[in-house]
């Protein structure tokens, strides 16, 4: 469980999050929507202590993030928008192993986790390949595998679909769906709600640093439209 308790945060003197409270349950699939600059990225970076609130607390699995950053970082895996900036090694296997190595695990355990993580993103057996030679969709999946190798209970993704063509997008989505089915919580910030809308348990929408919608997808529809957040056509017609 990830809990935000009255979190405020400002970049310098520009307030970005304002007294924000939110709970994300274990195994939940949550969509995070909101206009450009509404604070989605800033919010997500609080989940694992990359940013620290100016006031309020973020609690992961019962422990405030500030008290045990390692615990927060291993239970919340994070995938950023540009995969190219987050790889620390030149090959797939070496990159995915980076997280587990930092946790000080045994070599066998590291190998096991790397295999599992790559399998979960449908890249089993491609450990030795050079990351630069992979396609965009494959790179996104390697980035996800890097987070999964920490065996997190939540996976947080900040616009993971940018630049992906439809088959690649689907392949990433399918992976998220099966992870979610297997019990991993997924928090997904995106402007493009196609396909994901039907997968999600909840939609959280932000506006100017505050949560203004927090509801099941079908019930959130009207509110989202009033926020100028675009919902997929098929969904609208179905309701």
């Amino acid at each position, binding site marked *: 469980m990830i809990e935000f308790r009255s979190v405020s945060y400002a970049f310098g003197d520009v307030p970005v999050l304002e007294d924000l409270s939110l709970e994300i349950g274990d195994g939940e699939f949550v969509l995070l929507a909101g206009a450009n600059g509404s604070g989605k990225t800033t919010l997500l970076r609080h989940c694992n202590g*990359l940013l620290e609130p100016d006031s309020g607390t973020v609690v992961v699995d019962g422990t405030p993030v500030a008290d045990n950053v390692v615990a927060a970082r291993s239970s919340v895996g994070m995938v950023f928008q540009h995969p190219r900036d*987050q790889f620390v090694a030149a090959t797939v296997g070496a990159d995915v192993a980076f997280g587990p190595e930092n946790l000080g695990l045994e*070599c066998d355990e590291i190998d096991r986790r790397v295999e599992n993580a790559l399998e979960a993103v449908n890249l089993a057996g491609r450990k030795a390949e050079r990351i630069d030679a992979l396609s965009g969709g494959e790179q996104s999946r390697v980035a996800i595998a890097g987070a999964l190798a920490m065996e997190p209970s939540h996976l947080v993704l900040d616009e993971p679909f940018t630049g992906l063509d439809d088959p690649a997008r689907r392949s990433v989505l399918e992976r998220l769906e099966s992870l979610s089915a297997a019990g991993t919580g997924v928090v997904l910030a995106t402007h493009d709600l196609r396909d994901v809308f039907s997968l999600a348990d909840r939609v959280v929408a932000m506006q100017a640093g505050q949560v203004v919608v927090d509801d099941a997808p079908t019930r959130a529809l009207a509110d989202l439209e009033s926020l100028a957040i675009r919902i997929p056509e098929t969904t609208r017609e179905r309701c």
Partner: protein
Amino acid sequence: MLTYEPDDTLAHRLDPRAKLAVQIGFATTALAHTTIPALAVLSLLTAGILYSTRVHLIRTLVAFRFALAILVIAPLIAALTLGPTWIDWADGQASLQASYRVVLILLVSAAYVRSTPIRHSRAAIQRTIPGKPGQLLGIGIALVFRFLPVIQRDITTIRDAMAARLGTERSALERASTLGIRSLARAFERADRLSLALQARCFAWNPTLPPLAFSRRDWGVLVFALALGLTAVL
């Protein structure tokens, strides 16, 4: 370009630390000797190392073409003398022999580069240099290797971005400074994002190091390297 190539030579199976020791031993003795007999022995040794590591001699010499210029230039400069006679052949020859050993040292290090993937070097550094500096240096090397092509591409892209909006119409100085500043700013942006990514994955001082085994064969090579180094005092 000189780079690691997967293969199954003896050198490929050796521990990077043993190979590093050989290079140091070789350089130590080569820097101490410039007599023709010594250079002959060192050349034979170099040939042996190159042959057993399957280093392509011509390609390697091309890779070091900048350094090779010294073979011509240094002796010429050394031979020039102010004052009567103007040319001192003995000086020139001494310098030629001194330059030649540098080429041998470069060739021996080419054998290391061809036979050692970066991740092995990284592991060796983390195991050899104790504490935090060793850890940062090891990961740092992996990062330099990973980001070199990324930054190279960034620089081309910035040049394209300027060209696309007719930056070519500006003065050379202005273009160079925009390119320079932007490249630097861009590299720092990447660094800041990389630092978040490292933290998100629990970047720690005490990680599990990639496995590396120092075998009997490596001990043998190490002894050889030591012996080689000791010949410096002969």
